């Protein structure tokens, strides 16, 4: 079946602009996760959603970052007033049970 998809695959934006990154999880997966991969920081957890529970936002680096998940499916990660240090690959993952997470191909964000 279809895996996790993310769009866009690449995004170049100017410093100070807002960006939205989209994630389509595997159908039926109840949990959805966002991570960030950068050279200096490795793989960092950002936020996760599980069913109707309040999301765990403990990994969001600043209040410029926010995410929502509509209808228990698609998720959007929004970064406001982007900074150069936001440049990274943003990875989305989903899982059905509380075990392995399946990752999408990522969105490469470059802030100029």
């Amino acid at each position, binding site marked *: 079946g279809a895996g996790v998809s993310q769009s866009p695959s690449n995004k170049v934006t100017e410093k100070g602009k807002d960006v939205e990154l989209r994630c389509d999880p595997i159908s039926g997966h109840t949990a959805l996760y966002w991570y960030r991969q950068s050279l200096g920081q*490795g793989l960092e957890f950002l936020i996760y959603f599980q069913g109707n529970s309040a999301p*765990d936002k403990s990994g969001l680096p600043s209040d410029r970052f926010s995410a929502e998940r509509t209808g228990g499916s698609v998720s959007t990660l929004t970064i406001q007033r982007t900074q150069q240090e936001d440049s990274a690959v943003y990875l989305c993952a989903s899982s059905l049970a509380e075990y392995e997470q399946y990752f999408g191909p990522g969105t490469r964000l470059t802030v100029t």
Partner: protein
Amino acid sequence: AQSVAQPEDQVNVAEGNPLTVKCTYSVSGNPYLFWYVQYPNRGLQFLLKYITGDNLVKGSYGFEAEFNKSQTSFHLKKPSALVSDSALYFCAVRDSRGFQKLVFGTGTRLLVSP
């Protein structure tokens, strides 16, 4: 708090030789342990997991990993390496309680030479 250490930035092995990629972890409670592989410009692909049961777990592409509770290790192994195994490998851990984030190691680059 959970943590993972991958002590080797890079592992070099000749094709046909056995390979080991090391991972040690720290977690409160029972660990759930995972290995993922990342090819250039790709997302992470799940290889294998340890949840409970047999300490030796088998995964995709002929990989296996051994859970050692006393040494808090979960090393990735393969009896005979292929050039196509060259990639970046990540070990990850999470606590066994509920849905939770994965904590990743810094990754180990595996280079298999012909």
